[in-house]
């Protein structure tokens, strides 16, 4: 066994951005949201991620703007620290750590000078933290005073008002008076209703509390300074639990993904914004009230203007509760494809960590209602060239009422997307268990094989257009095969598509697609074949199968005999499309092990014990853009492809070699340190003037520091820029003198940057020839003074 010395498992992209309520900056230009172990700063105008604030070592549980400084924000994390960031530049200012050991922060609030952190130790407590004003970066928070205990860890269940603090079962705590009142709703009003509190919010300026309930009602509480005389009014629009409330004009949302805006004091007037996507989980409002933003259960943040119009959508990798399709790679864009929103396939770029687009497979209006059976995309497959996509959607679990659709999508070059070509309703009588295209690399794919619980497998053929109708080619059934009325579970084409292997329970049947003849049968009882995979390249004579009786079998197709068999509970068997390597994920004692091997060799190339807990059922080999040249034995298998896999907790993980990691960290460090710009003619032109004019320095740094989305207006910059280019009379004299100097001296002078001592950067930059220098000089000598007149 080879030890996994320098290959490491790392998280890769696609973290949740809807975990906690996002924070909008005071000027509504930035959106901060907790995303795994970092805080991401998005531009609200362009939806781009500007930078990620990294430093926490565990899940971040809260992001909050600092009320006293609108360019700073707090974040708290399960690692027990609270950090203060300058989010425009992405700099960590200070961080506070508790001196107690077992402390996790769940959410934070700031009230006057105190920072309140809900920390869960043994019991849920709200603690006030006083951060001392000192210059050091790391602060140890000593002054911890428990304010309240036994509160909910859900941040929606508590809210801060003007001077009150409220939470579940309506307990109102007055910070000033240090008093608390509790209010209860009668458990059985009318229908034995489910009137449990789900969320709560306070009016920012008035004494009014809004609470959302399980039955879809919103209650507005007033006059709660007295235990007896409180009043409440009820608003009802939602049909199931209200999950978020916010703002001066009350905003509410729930599972039906409709944002409802209630006018304060005129509650009968409502504005609706329907069909926002997944269920609304959080709503937040910018401090100036110009923007709302809603987080959705499908890992999406929608930014909405106050006139109830969607202005931007920030979409992360959608991770439903269940991924039914395999992980796939779209051959054209190399995007990762998997289930996304209900009824959609999502195309996710792994390089840019960005969702490219969602492809609507089901094409039906999604009805948000619990207990309703929806159409789900359960299977999808791409052909080798990426010109065809096959999808299977199904509805209703009961066998007699199963609704199945097989859809075939053709890639449209003009639209750069997949367009529906053929819909086959009820392609099989039972559920489809596997779907595969042959691997034809050169020509057009014209065949698809699907296997089903009804005991048949069908071959679908792309038929030429019938007669002279205007429609293009469409798919139809070409062959229907069965074997002893056994149920086929899996199918696989060989690398050259000359053989088709179909696993009928315990028996593997090998067919030739050219004439649909049964060539041979292979079997290794007991245990049904669960996974089939042909070897590739030099190992193409092998057929591998994983059975339910914890066996991995390898058959030699030349002799039709069993080559080897080993006992392991394989949950997933994969072949690398670019090499002979195969990966087997084995479930052993509650965790998953990975073995990478060549079918023809007795020893595995790589093994990793206890990769993660639970079964791994989704994984994919992603071809690399640039091949690695690693000759290290343990990491050689990663030369052609990445291996991505999804754990049971829906984390997308991948393997990374030591060399790669080093390169990554080096490049990121370099990014921070190297501030100097390459020596270009433009730099030379500017650099000379930097010493003299402060203006150009300012403009340059301004344009550099501000990212490309938030530049000042052109008019503002232009005048400064042009002014800095103008040469005053004295300078001109100097430069004329310089011209008389020797060429050698001149070069050193030119290549001198503004602050650094000359020499170092000069040699780093590409040396300019004498002709070029002269050319530049002539350019500089041109009289720009006419521009000054224009500017003034």
């Amino acid at each position, binding site marked *: 066994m080879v030890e996994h010395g320098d290959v490491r498992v790392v998280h890769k992209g696609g973290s949740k951005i809807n975990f906690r309520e996002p924070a909008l900056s005071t000027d509504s230009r930035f959106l901060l949201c907790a995303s795994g172990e970092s805080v991401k700063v998005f531009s609200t105008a362009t939806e781009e991620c500007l930078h990620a604030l990294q430093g926490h070592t565990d899940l971040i549980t809260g992001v909050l703007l600092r009320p006293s400084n609108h360019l700073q924000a707090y974040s708290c994390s399960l690692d027990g620290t609270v950090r203060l960031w300058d989010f425009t530049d992405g700099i960590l200012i200070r961080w506070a750590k508790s001196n107690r050991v077992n402390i996790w922060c769940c959410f934070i609030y700031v009230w006057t000078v105190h920072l309140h952190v809900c920390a869960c130790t043994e019991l849920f407590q709200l603690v006030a933290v006083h951060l001392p004003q000192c210059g050091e970066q790391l602060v140890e928070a000593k002054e911890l005073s428990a304010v309240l205990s036994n509160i909910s860890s859900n941040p929606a269940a508590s809210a801060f008002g003007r001077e009150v603090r409220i939470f579940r079962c309506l307990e109102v705590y007055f910070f000033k008076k240090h008093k608390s009142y509790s209010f209860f709703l009668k458990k059985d009003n009318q229908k034995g209703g489910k009137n449990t509190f789900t969320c709560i919010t306070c009016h920012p300026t008035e004494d009014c509390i809004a609470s959302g309930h399980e039955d879809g009602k919103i209650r507005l509480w007033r006059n709660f300074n007295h235990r007896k005389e409180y009043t409440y009014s009820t608003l009802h629009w939602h049909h199931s639990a209200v999950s978020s409330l916010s703002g001066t004009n009350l905003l509410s949302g729930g599972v039906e993904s409709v944002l409802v805006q209630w006018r304060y004091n005129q509650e009968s007037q409502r504005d609706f914004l*329907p069909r926002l996507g997944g269920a609304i989980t959080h709503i937040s409002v910018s401090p100036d009230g110009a923007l709302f933003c809603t987080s959705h259960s499908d890992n999406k943040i929608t930014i909405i203007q106050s006139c109830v119009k969607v202005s931007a959508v920030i979409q992360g990798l959608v991770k439903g509760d269940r991924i039914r399709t395999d992980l796939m790679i779209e051959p054209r864009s190399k995007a990762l494809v998997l289930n996304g929103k209900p009824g959609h396939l999502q195309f996710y770029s792994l390089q840019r960590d960005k969702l490219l687009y969602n492809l609507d497979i089901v094409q039906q209006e999604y009805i948000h209602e619990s207990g309703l059976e929806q159409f789900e995309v359960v299977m999808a497959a791409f052909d080798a060239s990426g010109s065809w996509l096959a999808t299977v959607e199904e509805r209703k679990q009961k066998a007699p009422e199963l609704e199945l659709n097989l859809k075939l999508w053709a890639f449209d070059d003009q639209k750069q997307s997949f367009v529906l070509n053929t819909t086959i309703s009820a392609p099989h009588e039972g559920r489809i268990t596997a779907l595969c295209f042959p691997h034809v690399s050169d020509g057009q794919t014209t065949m698809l094989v699907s296997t089903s619980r009804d005991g048949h497998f069908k071959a679908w053929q792309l038929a030429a257009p*019938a*007669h002279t109708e205007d429609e293009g080619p469409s798919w139809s059934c070409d062959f229907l095969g069965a074997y002893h009325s056994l149920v086929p579970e899996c199918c696989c084409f060989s690398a050259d598509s000359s053989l088709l292997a179909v696993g009928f329970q315990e028996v593997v049947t090998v067919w030739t697609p050219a004439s649909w003849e049964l060539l041979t049968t292979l079997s290794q009882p007991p245990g049904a074949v669960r996974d089939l995979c042909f070897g590739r390249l030099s190992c193409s004579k092998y057929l591998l199968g994983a059975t339910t009786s914890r066996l991995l079998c390898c058959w030699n197709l030349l002799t039709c005999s069993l080559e080897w068999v080993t006992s392991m509970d394989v949950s997933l068997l994969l072949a690398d499309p670019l090499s002979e390597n195969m990966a087997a994920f084995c479930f052993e004692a509650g965790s998953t092990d990975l073995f990478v091997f060549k079918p023809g060799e007795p020893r595995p190339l790589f093994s990793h014990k206890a990769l993660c807990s639970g079964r791994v059922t989704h994984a994919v080999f992603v071809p690399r853009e640039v091949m690695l040249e690693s000759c290290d034995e343990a990491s050689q298998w990663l030369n052609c492809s990445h291996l991505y896999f999804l754990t049971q907790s829906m984390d997308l993980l991948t393997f990374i070699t030591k060399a790669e990691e080093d390169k990554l960290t080096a490049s990121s460090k370099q990014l921070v340190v190297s501030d100097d710009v390459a020596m270009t003619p433009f730099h030379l032109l500017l650099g000379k003037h930097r010493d003299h004019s402060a203006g150009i320095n300012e403009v340059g740094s301004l344009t550099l520091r501000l990212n490309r989305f938030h530049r000042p207006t052109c008019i503002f910059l232009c005048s400064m820029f042009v002014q800095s280019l103008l040469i005053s009379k004295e300078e001109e004299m100097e430069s004329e003198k310089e011209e008389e100097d020797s060429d050698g001296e001149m070069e050193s002078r030119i290549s001198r940057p503004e602050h650094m001592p000359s020499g170092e950067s000069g040699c780093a930059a590409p040396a300019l020839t004498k002709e070029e220098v002269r050319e530049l000089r002539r350019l500089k000598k041109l009289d720009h003074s006419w521009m000054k007149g224009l500017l003034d």
Partner: protein
Amino acid sequence: MASYKPTNIPVYPKLGEKVTEETLYWKNYKTPIQIKEFGAVSNIHFSPVTPYNFAVTAFTRIHLYGLLSQEPVKTFTRFKDTAYCGRFRSDGQLLVAGCEDSVVRLFDVSGKVALRMFKGHTKAVHVTDFTSDRYQILTGSDDYTCCLWDIPNSAQLNTYQEHTDYIRCGVTSQLNRDLFVTGSYDHSLKVFDARVDKSVMTINHGHPVESLLLYPSEGLLVSAGGRYVRVWDLLKGGQPLVSLKNHHKTVTCLALSSNGQRLLSGSLDRHVKVYNTTSYKVVHNFDYPAAILSLALAPEDESIVVGMTNSILSIKHRKPSEEAKETAGHQRRRPSYRVYAHRKSYVPKQDDYLVSKPVRQHLAKYDKQLKKFNVSKALDTALETWIRGRKPEITVAVIRELDRRGTLKNALAGRDEQELSRLLSFLIANLVDARFAPVLITAAEMILDIYQSIIGQSPVVDKQLLHLQSLLERELDYQKDLLEVLGMLDTMFASSLPKIELPCSGISTSNGLPQGQSTASRPQILAA
């Protein structure tokens, strides 16, 4: 914000006849004009010159019809017995016809009395034709002989006595004045050359020959007899080219479309089939009410004339072409266009920035109601008479959508007698349709659940429910019969398939399956 996605109306594949350009071309005829003749219409022949009158031979008369007239423009009645085979000369001036009384008569088209009478045959003359030099006449008779006659002096030029049965068809070459072909009930076709006194070629058709046709190039000869239409290559010495067996009764007549691309054959099975002359596939089919005896096409395929045994002459005229119709409509509407023309005339220039208007999504009425969750109203809309009758797939799609939303029960409930009977009549009309059955059965079950308490209150609804019940019973019997047939077919297929011996690996132990089991396993290939 995503926009509302309208209900998906599935497009069902059209069953039966595929619509092709051929079908469109041949369907583009008006409803036929039917004219009652005095007897079975044995021959129809178009005049080769304008105005393309056609001669219809029926019983003892020959009628001349104009192309668009419904009344005969001229009638030749001077026959003593049944007339046969009235044909025009290539200049359209003369007409020749045989007769049961063995006399061949020659008429001037403008006159009434026969110009010449050719007497010499001893039995009925079924075949007459002009040769291409226009001065001779070919006749074929039931006395097994065929003759050539000179028109000016009505003399018999030549007699051929080679056939051994009735001669019932014959054609003369249009390119060579000496060549002609005859077909006989002795199953043979004979090609004659007038310059020699014997046939130059004999071809065996295999059945009594009923009709003959020469291609305009005269390289190919088509013969019809029995159920077969056969094409022969004359240039290769009468080699059979193709044999078509598309009729199920005797083929009686043949015709060629004006451009020579399509061959038509009429038969006693009451069909006219249209073949493509390159692939010899049937591209279209006409149905007629009675057995067909004769068939002719006007020049440019302007009309199809068919004569039948029940003495009906059916004339189909081509519809005026679409373009002519369109231009007529265009002219009528032009003034109203002119008012708005200036708006459309603005063409954006190169540097113009085009601001596209947001396109408003158009929704059907039921979609608008579904969008507002008005489920009952949406179902009402989908059950409107014209949708229900013309496009039942829309109604079914709406029912399916309601079922998907879990609100079908709400939509079905709370209906009065009239609405309920409307629903039931829709069910009765469409429940047994295989495309709609899965959806409608669910709906029917729900309706029975909801309304079982009111059974017996309304005679209309009760009647419809009983109708539904009987419909389902009939369908069940039908399905059972079908399953029986399927089972029979399966056994037939299974016994007819060759037994495939599986290549059994030598090392049967490692293969896992025991030896006996492996050889016994035969794939159940079903013909898909």
